[in-house]
């Protein structure tokens, strides 16, 4: 059964003069301008199209990833699914409840981990969990019991009576996860949960997420880290500028990555002429110019580099930098969008 479904989901933010001038004052999930994707298509600067007809289906128990660069529309999508953003058009449902017509039913069924930890700083760690439970009608003794179970699981039981500000970034993010779980939702949304965490905290968080997945919960996570998506997600949607570019099992997507190694040469001027020359080389499946960058797909790994440099120089260009990328989600992403992920 599909746990989450969106049909032709569209979101347009009107841009008031003030919004065009000033920084967004929006909430983490959403209101005016949130996820206000700087890269999204602006329409005469009067409105900003954050989502342009998004169709998604997430199955029950699935770990689903929304992958895309900043401004792709990921946060807006999560905002709509978590009832914090009103879609401009289209439909969406979560766990059988319509996000527009029955937001209260949706809220009962979901847990949300925001991009930036936003604990209730007027309350201590335990109170954060107990009051959140109370909002979901859970009695105090049961709430305290559950809170301690979660805190213990995250090795934070000794922090129960600490102020939230005394927690590290990783601990605050784990508190957010505990909060999202304490009312036992079937669907969990995580918006870039590991941004700003050090590598150790990130790996620890991955373990927690794998655990949740094993318990059969439906998880929707946005990320712009390829590795994170590869490591955790069953299926991935690659979105950019509010549109769905690819949707498939993670392994299937990786298999779709353009063959061969991606070699990028940064030149000292437009790369068009060099691209044409490189195309004639052996073991080159594709060669294109993106401004001053020359993108070459090689079927012989790095062995064509010297020939490519010669070709560029014969076109009157100097090579300033060289990068090599093995076939991966990232090369697929570059192939699909024409730009890098971050």
């Amino acid at each position, binding site marked *: 059964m599909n746990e989450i479904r969106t049909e032709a989901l569209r979101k347009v933010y009107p841009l008031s003069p003030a919004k065009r001038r000033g920084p967004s*004052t929006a909430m983490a*999930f959403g209101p005016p301008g949130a996820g206000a994707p700087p890269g999204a298509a602006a329409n005469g600067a009067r409105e900003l199209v954050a989502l342009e007809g998004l169709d998604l289906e997430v199955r029950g128990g699935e770990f689903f990833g929304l992958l895309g660069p900043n401004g792709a529309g990921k946060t807006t999508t999560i905002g709509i699914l978590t009832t*914090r953003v009103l879609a401009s058009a289209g439909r969406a449902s979560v766990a059988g409840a319509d996000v527009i017509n029955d937001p209260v039913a949706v809220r*009962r*069924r979901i847990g949300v981990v925001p991009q930036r930890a936003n604990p209730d700083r007027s309350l201590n760690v335990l109170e954060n969990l107990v009051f959140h439970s109370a*909002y979901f009608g859970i009695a105090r003794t049961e709430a305290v019991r559950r809170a301690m179970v979660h805190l213990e699981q995250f090795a934070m039981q000794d922090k129960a009576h600490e102020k939230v500000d005394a927690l590290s970034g990783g601990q605050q993010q784990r508190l957010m996860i505990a909060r999202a779980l304490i009312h*036992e939702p*079937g669907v969990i949304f995580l918006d870039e949960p590991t941004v700003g965490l050090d590598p150790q905290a990130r790996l620890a968080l991955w373990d927690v997420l794998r655990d949740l997945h094993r318990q059969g*919960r439906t998880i929707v996570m946005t990320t712009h880290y390829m590795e994170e998506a590869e490591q955790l997600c069953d299926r991935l949607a690659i979105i950019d500028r509010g549109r769905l570019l690819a949707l498939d099992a993670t392994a299937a997507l990786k298999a779709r990555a353009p063959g061969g190694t991606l070699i990028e040469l940064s030149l000292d001027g437009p790369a068009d002429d060099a691209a044409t020359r490189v195309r004639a080389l052996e073991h080159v499946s594709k060669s294109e110019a993106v401004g001053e960058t020359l993108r070459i797909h090689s079927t012989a790994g790095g062995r064509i580099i010297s020939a490519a440099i010669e070709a560029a120089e014969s076109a009157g260009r100097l090579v300033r930098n060289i990068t090599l990328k093995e076939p991966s989600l990232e090369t697929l992403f570059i192939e699909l969008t024409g730009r890098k992920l971050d």
Partner: protein
Amino acid sequence: MNEPTANPPMPVRTSTVFIALLRRDVRVAMKELPFFLLRTVMQPVLFLIVFGFLLPKMGMVRGGYQTTLLPGILAVSLALSAIQSVALPMVQDFGWTKEIEDRLLAPVATWVIAAEKIVAGVIQGVVSALFVLPLARLIMGPIPNLTFGHAGDVLLITVLGATAFSALGMWLGTGIAPQQIGLMFSAIIAPMMFFGCAYYPWRGLDAVPVMKYAVLVNPLVYVAEGMRGALTPDVPHMPLPASMGALLVIAALFWTAGLRSFRKRAIG
């Protein structure tokens, strides 16, 4: 670790969520009580000391002035604390901390969350008025013509006034940008206090007819005059039903504006 529930969870009653939200605000208010009182009661108390104690001692104001001042000071305490206890958290939560996200995801209609916040503001407004009343008696000494015979009217004016100002706090707190919070005090709250007939009676403005009618847009006038009608009925004041009626209309307007503005900030 608990297993996820396979079936949709049981609906939670709106009243249950409302009470939980209110308990949260009361808990936080209790933690911050000294700061809260300092923030909201300091200004009225300083006024009491200067105008209710020092100036009468110097013989610079007439003896009956305390009778005029007391209801006005109560009105100011009420208004200041009701506005601030809603507006400041709203500006912070929506502006930068985003802490309110947690509550916005509670399984309840969005307007309920705003309504709870306003009710919490009403409670805080009433508490600070109750706190100032004995202080005023202490600072100013016996106050002529003061009666508690109309306790029902006092309570009604207090609650109506706190409701109007708490809802105004919601409107302001969700309507202005965080960097303009200082402006809220200097451009809205300060003129409201000085032209709110708190430190002088409305009937005294008979001397300046333009002012007498211009100040009627100021909600504080009706709280101050209503307090006079209820606490010191022998002193000339605006008819009590007029004060109450006006407050009712103003409270309804501010509620509507406050809830609408909250919703706009909460849902994009």
